[in-house]
């Protein structure tokens, strides 16, 4: 037992963090929210270059994966920087395509997902898909099977302006009449959990920095116990979500993954509420960058399995970690 990321995994996180910091992601998010995708596509290519999408694609299809622990590491950083785009959907689509009994679609579609030339989205558990107006591989999973959708409907606005939602058109090429989907959901929840944890950590960091410099009554508001204790609670929630995330990445047991999803998303959402409150009115504005993370925390909570659904999954599992009693 050694439940710590190794040096290589930590270095991978650090290099992504540095790259994303330099990329000025808040301005990319704002472009993306207006439907101007050029800067986002450029960022997507750079994320692909460091191998993030290849982590989800098997070696047989020109990827490096599947590497769930590294995916969790990467998605934590993507969330920390509020990177826009169908990130979770591309990874889940890779898992879905890789598992099809017919190798054809995987052979044709996966290499471009690994390199970042293609961007996938997936309509399945919700009536719409994320970023269908920019994704190039539109997958629709219905009781009729998995189709390569011919296009998307009108974009609907999300509470998180960076999430552009649209229904996918029915029809198109039938890729599989009855695809196996267990791993798809596992990867969707795992990467959503990682992204949410990153969102929560960013909200905490930004709020800690803010309360240190904001002065009222002649003192930094971060010296007030009522403020400290709320931030301590956020820290506790996030730090107990972290081991669930990496534990789930190791076991990939559905109950472990669901536990990580609900815990990370609830921790991020609780942190968002605290961040908003402690920023006061400035936090309640769209123009202040905090909003990019605040709104994402709300959206991720219900994406790919809301809290109730995830808790039900935990209870239906024999044991959270599957192979032994506890």
């Amino acid at each position, binding site marked *: 037992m050694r439940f710590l990321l190794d040096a290589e995994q930590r270095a991978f996180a650090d290099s992504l963090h540095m790259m994303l910091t330099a990329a000025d992601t808040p301005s990319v998010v704002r472009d993306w929210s207006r439907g101007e995708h050029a800067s986002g596509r450029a960022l997507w290519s750079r994320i692909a270059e460091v191998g993030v999408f290849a982590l989800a694609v098997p070696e047989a299809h020109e990827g490096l994966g599947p590497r769930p622990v590294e995916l969790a590491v990467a998605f934590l950083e993507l969330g920390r920087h509020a990177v826009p785009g169908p990130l979770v959907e591309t990874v889940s689509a890779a898992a879905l395509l890789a598992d099809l009994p017919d190798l054809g679609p995987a052979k044709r579609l996966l290499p471009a997902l690994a390199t970042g030339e293609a961007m996938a989205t997936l309509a399945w558990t919700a009536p719409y898909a994320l970023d269908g107006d920019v994704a190039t591989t539109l997958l629709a999973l219905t009781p009729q099977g998995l189709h390569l959708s011919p296009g998307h409907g009108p974009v609907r606005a999300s509470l998180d302006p960076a999430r552009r939602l649209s229904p996918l058109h029915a029809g198109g090429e039938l890729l599989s009449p009855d695809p196996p989907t267990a791993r798809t959901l596992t990867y969707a929840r795992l990467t959503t959990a990682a992204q949410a944890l990153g969102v929560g950590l960013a909200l905490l960091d930004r709020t800690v920095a803010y309360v240190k410099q904001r002065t009222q009554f002649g003192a930094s508001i971060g010296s007030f116990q009522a403020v400290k204790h709320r931030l301590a609670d956020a820290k506790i929630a996030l730090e107990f979500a972290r*081991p669930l995330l990496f534990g789930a990445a190791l076991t990939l047991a559905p109950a472990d993954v669901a536990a990580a999803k609900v815990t990370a998303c609830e921790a991020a959402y609780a942190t968002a509420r605290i961040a908003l409150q402690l920023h006061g009115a400035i936090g309640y504005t769209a123009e202040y960058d905090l909003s990019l993370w605040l709104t994402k925390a709300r959206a991720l909570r219900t994406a790919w399995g809301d809290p109730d659904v995830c808790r039900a999954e935990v209870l239906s599992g024999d044991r959270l970690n599957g192979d032994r009693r506890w």
Partner: protein
Amino acid sequence: MTVDLTHAPADEAFRAEARAWLHAHVPPDPLPSLETEDGFAAHRAWEAELAADRWSVVNWPAPYGGRDATLVRWLLFEEEYYAAGAPGRVNQNGISLLAPTLFDHGTEEQRARVLPPMATGEVVWAQAWSEPEAGSDLASLKSRARRAAGGWLLSGQKTWSSRAAFADRAFGLFRTDPDAPKPHQGLTYLMFDLHAPGVTVRPIARLDGKPAFAELFLDEVFVPDEDVIGEPGQGWRIAMSTAGNERGLMLRSPGRFLASADRLHRLWQAQGSPQSTKNRVADALIGARAYQLFTFAAASRFLDGESIGPESSLNKVFWSEYDIALHETALDLLGAEGELTDTDWSERYVFSLAGPIYAGTNEIQRDIIAERLLGLPKGRR
């Protein structure tokens, strides 16, 4: 070295050996409450039974009655111990608070004299930290230790002394230099006999009426020099140096909560798996798993040579609030039976209520998290 949650075969063999022993020895019926005279005696006898086969202090060195178990093996032992429904540990204060201090700051003579009878339960220890006017602000304590020939004379009052109603000895901090410039200076860490002349023990009834703690009145109680731990005047540093270390990990093991969550899950299923408590039961399972994995990560860092430090404050707030939530869920599941004191859950619930108060209140822990982990400025408490 890559991240890995599987245990080494030798560690799993250790776990299997513990499980087999517990299966053969754990009493089939629960012992009477630890906080009663009969129950205390029964739990003391259980400590002796554990010790006879060297299961009472597995992580201690063999000469003192242990098995030199690593931190990981200790965690596995604890999982098995609580999964087996084994009794609460009457000497927890000694084993998890005093013993680590003796390992770090005691003399070999002290370890050889104090630890073996602690391991067998022959000597059960109470803690004596708080005073009527010194709780969270422990360094303001006033109980004195005055120099005497060959030792010290203790005078003053201690309170909320867990286990002191029936225990044999106690340990705590006493002021040996009242002229020291700062409150946390001039304190000395001492062990003393609860039956010595000059000690009056007044048991205090806990919320459920059981004498789980006591007030100690000390009037010129003689303590020989051999019962001073470390240098006189260094007591605060000694008491705090191990507070955030592995002791922070070992105060409440994940095994305890994993077993509690399992019991709650079984209760929920026995009650027909009601939808109304579904989410709270799931949260109990998730929280136990989170605490187990959090502890595995902390143990891995510790084994890498890192110190644990203020992180143990995250741990303490988490488990203490988790424990209450779990037991509240159990009582709610019991419905009208939940108020009865003769259920399996009643005393555990009462015990859980103390968690956010002892071992540093959760308010103090949150201050530590904010100031030492998040870097927020110190302010008025």
